[in-house]
């Protein structure tokens, strides 16, 4: 991608870097860009980001991890657009997102962003938690699945999976029940709304999510949607219409405002507290909703509402937008926007920081702990405040187990799980791709496994492999020798200069396959390789020993290497890339096709049993300033005999 191909090629040079974008609307502080507030280097300001984008696309600077982080540190809070006095301001975020899209398509994005997007691709949520767990937040609430109700209550990923945000999801559900609102939820069938995916630049994935959600809503006859999160509200209200999704979308605060106006909620229980309200970006600046939350809070007896200096369209973003509630490029410092904001809230004298966004909730709760203000400032969602004023008590539920052993006791329950390329193998594939980019050649990706693993091979092809081969054989709890034998037989039939394995697998972690296959093939090998450089007939490698020691070898080809993590940064596989990879060749063979009979595949090592570690009876939560918590943690570990 060059500047000439860039969608905003005729606009991006118009930024003067005058710095207006750093100020809030009320000019109270020059650090209202959350990334600039965090890092205070010009590169992290909006203007710096735009100038760097132009420089990258025009070839003046190269792509780098640092450039990607600068770009992805943008939380899409919209302060810059609102503040820039020049006419191209409406395209500022579009330009940044378009630049992110370029990086996505090239697969060159920060690893945390890659994980975020891959998790959504696989499990419909950024955390990578199973889809079958999405509806667990509503257990015991009596909330019904949607079946023709007035409203779809769309909870979103954070509300569905984050334990703290789940409390808010339940609280809002209880409030709506109490008000007699007719609503239902999608539960496990709910999928990510795609707002953050869109702001992260993964256009194809966003389109897919939007189209699927719109189709689902229409199939169910949904006309009205009330969202927990302003992020969902923004996507459904402003972006879904482009996909023929014309629904009547409200953020819950607007519904509560309306219910209070119609006297459908008894809030006479009151809420005695001094409260300051934080305007979330996707409700405020993105959608101009500033008054409904204030109407709701002011209506509750006992609340004294105090404004922070930076309020309404001058709000300072919590730092969680643009996926940063997960990818966390702005954390780790007292200058993190969430911590700055919490200090501002505390300075008002309020005891409650009220929010109307689950992202803000989680960001600020962590910030309160980091600031050591737990005794002085509590973060509450407005729905929780309303719930308490209505006399509703909301119960916690414990987090479900992520893994269960199946009835055979030799495997795990796989329903609801989505599989991915083994981390080590991904590094190996990236190493192969980089060699191919430098020296030419072809890459064949090989796996041994059941039909479901075709998807894994497709991802390898999408990443850049030329051909994929799957040997159809169930390897669950399989003896590595058998798998090595199958692989050796396949590889023998293929022309090969270099065979790359991941150093081990994430699940069974035997770490034996590569060495076994090398011995079977009679070729030299090296394990735990952390660097490699290839020449025509030989390869120079380093392998990692203990304490970071490296030993270096030159090995003649053909050779086999097992690749360690960290040797490179595996590129992201965009949804667009996966679609294109459908055209590449994927062969499926059986061991029989390879001349391997059943007798030859009898394992010599048999797995007896799988079991989970015993559950502990207690957990200790250590809170406070880093200096204090580090000391306490060290003491606890020492007493436990760990040190």
């Amino acid at each position, binding site marked *: 991608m060059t500047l000439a191909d860039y969608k905003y090629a*005729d606009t991006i*040079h*118009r*930024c*003067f*870097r*005058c*710095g*207006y974008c*750093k*100020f809030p609307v*009320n*000019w*109270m*502080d*020059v650090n209202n860009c959350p990334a600039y507030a965090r*890092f*205070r*280097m*010009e*590169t992290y300001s909006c203007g*710096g980001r735009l*100038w*760097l984008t132009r*420089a990258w696309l025009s070839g*003046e*600077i*190269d792509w*780098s991890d*640092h*450039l990607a982080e*600068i770009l992805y540190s943008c939380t899409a809070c919209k302060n810059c657009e609102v503040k820039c*006095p*020049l*006419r*191209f301001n409406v395209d500022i975020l579009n330009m940044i997102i378009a630049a992110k899209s370029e990086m996505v398509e090239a697969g060159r994005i920060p690893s945390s962003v890659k994980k975020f997007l891959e998790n959504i691709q696989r499990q419909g949520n950024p955390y990578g938690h199973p889809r079958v767990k999405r509806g667990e937040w509503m257990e015991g609430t009596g909330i019904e699945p949607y079946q023709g109700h007035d409203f779809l209550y769309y909870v979103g990923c954070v509300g569905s999976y984050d334990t703290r945000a789940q409390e808010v999801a339940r609280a809002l559900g209880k409030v709506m029940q109490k008000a007699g609102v007719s609503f239902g939820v999608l539960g496990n069938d709910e999928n990510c709304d795609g707002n953050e995916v869109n702001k992260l630049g993964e256009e194809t994935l966003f389109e897919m999510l939007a189209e699927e959600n719109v189709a689902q809503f229409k199939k169910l006859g949904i006309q009205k949607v009330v969202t927990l999160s302003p992020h969902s509200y923004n996507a459904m209200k402003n972006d879904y219409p482009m996909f023929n999704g014309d629904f009547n979308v409200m953020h819950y605060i607007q519904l509560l405002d309306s219910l209070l106006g119609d006297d459908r909620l008894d809030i006479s229980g009151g809420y005695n507290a001094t409260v300051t309200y934080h305007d979330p970006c996707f409700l405020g600046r993105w959608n101009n909703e500033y008054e409904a939350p204030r109407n709701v809070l002011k209506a509750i007896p006992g609340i004294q509402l105090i404004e922070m200096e930076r309020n309404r369209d001058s709000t300072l973003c919590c730092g969680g937008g643009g996926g940063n509630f997960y990818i966390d490029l702005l954390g780790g*410092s007292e200058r993190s926007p969430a911590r700055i904001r919490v200090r501002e809230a505390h300075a008002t004298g309020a005891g409650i920081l009220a929010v109307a966004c689950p992202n803000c909730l989680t960001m600020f709760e962590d910030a309160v702990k980091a600031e050591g203000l737990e005794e002085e400032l509590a973060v509450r969602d407005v729905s929780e405040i309303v719930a308490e004023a209505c006399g509703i008590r909301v119960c916690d539920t414990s987090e479900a187990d992520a893994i269960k052993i199946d009835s055979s006791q030799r495997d795990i329950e796989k329903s609801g799980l989505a599989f991915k390329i083994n981390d080590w193998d991904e590094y190996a594939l990236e190493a192969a791709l980089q060699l191919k980019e430098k020296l030419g050649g072809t890459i064949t990706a090989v796996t041994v496994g059941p039909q479901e693993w075709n998807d894994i091979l497709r991802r390898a092809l999408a990443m850049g492999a030329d051909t994929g081969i799957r040997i159809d054989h169930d390897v669950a709890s399989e003896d590595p020798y058998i798998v090595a034998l199958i692989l050796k037989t396949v590889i023998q039939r293929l022309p090969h200069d270099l065979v790359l394995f991941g150093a081990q697998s994430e699940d069974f972690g035997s770490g034996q396959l590569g060495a076994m296959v090398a011995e079977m093939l009679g070729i030299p090998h090296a394990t735990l390789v952390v660097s490699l450089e290839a020449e025509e007939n030989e390869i120079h490698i380093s392998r990692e020993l203990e304490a970071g020691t490296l030993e270096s070898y030159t090995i003649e080809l053909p050779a086999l290497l097992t690749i360690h993590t960290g040797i490179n940064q595996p590129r992201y596989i965009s949804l667009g890339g996966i679609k294109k990879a459908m055209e590449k060749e994927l062969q499926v063979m059986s061991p029989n096709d390879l001349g391997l009979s059943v007798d030859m595949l009898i394992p010599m090592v048999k797995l007896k049993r799988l079991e989970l570690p015993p559950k502990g009876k207690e957990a200790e939560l250590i809170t406070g300033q880093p200096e204090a918590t580090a000391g306490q943690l060290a003491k606890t570990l020492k007493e436990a005999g760990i040190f």
Partner: protein
Amino acid sequence: MDSIHQALIEIVGEEQVSNRPEELYIYSFDLGTTEPHRPDYAVAPRTTEEIQGIVKLANKEKIPVVPLGGGLSLAGLAVPFKGGIALDLKRMDSIIEVNEEARYAVVECGVSQGQLTTYLERYYPHLTHSEPGAPPQATIAGNVAIHGQGDLAHPYGFNSDMVNGLEVVLPTGEICKFGSCSIGASWFTQHPLPDLGLFLGWSGATGIITKVSLRLFPCKSIRGTGLFVVENEELVPEVMYKLSHTQMAEDIVAFSQAIPPFASGLQHFSINMAADSEKELEFKQEIIWDDTLGEYIRSGAGGFLGFVRGLQRPQVSKTSDWRKGGGFEYVGSIMPVKKYPECYRRGREISERHDIPYTVLGRCIGAAHSMMFSWTYAFNRADPETVKQAREALHETDDLVLELGGTIWKPGLYGQKLAMERLDPNTLKLMKKVKQLLDPNGIMNPGNWEVSQ
């Protein structure tokens, strides 16, 4: 990691030092037409002591230090011409003190114009400062250091005239104070202690200003702008003299521009007035519009375009987008007021010859003792030809300033060279002595005000 990088990290912390291509790229630029030059490091200190540590390191390693405030001088004054350390001072953004009785504010060097304006409006609404027309990210200290002028220039002069005291880190690392603060008193006056002339107007080549005590002025409750227009540029000096004689205005600016086309060739005046009552405002309006400008209005030589209440503060400028090009630069000069007509005519001719819509402006300083006259040249950052045209126009205009008997305000390297060619030889020698005394290793913003042998 090289030893200098490591040493910088030890002074300011890892996150505030970078030698990565991205930071070096961004910090290589001025926002005008000056060619970029890469620094070796970009550093953002938080305290005077950190700056001191950096300067001492720079002396030891003989590496240049280039201080940067808002970066809005548009004259290349913070471009690292010889590499070195680009020192971003904007993290030093504390407003340390506002003294209501003595009417001053003490601010760190990174405090921006916008930040101070809003702070005063909110907490001290009866006090104000002289805000320049630059974007509000411009710093108080930077504006003072370049002898800037703001919207109180007519009654109170240059912003550098409004300084009660400075704290400075010398190029050799000592921290010095000037003004009453230097003898342990409050920061309320500069005089009669030794003056501050060693650090203002030197483009950061003699030291780094870390704190400024800035005089504040009464802020009246009603503020607004009246607009007046004449067609004949020859009338501008006399109008300005007459207006300044009334002592009724806070700011008197004459300007003319090609865009919008209907305004081309006309000379507009914006006249800021302030009052604490309707009675006072009416009185001032009467003096200005009826008594002073009435003759022009009645004769048809001038027109009153109205008075609008409320000042846009911080001021918002859209000049950079006039050519949808993201760029402009201007030559600022300090000129005798009587030169306005010639400045306008000659400047317009230069603009038109370079195919740039002309924009000129003259701000009355003091009792029309002088004016800041500027010629602005917009360019399209994506079109190198327009950048070249603008640069050529700027250099021609630098020559014009001196030809017309003015001085170049905040000159870039080209303008500095022109000025030094004309400077009194003994003055030049003294400048060289001062520079050598203060900066024996030549580390402070090298390239600027370098007196050749």
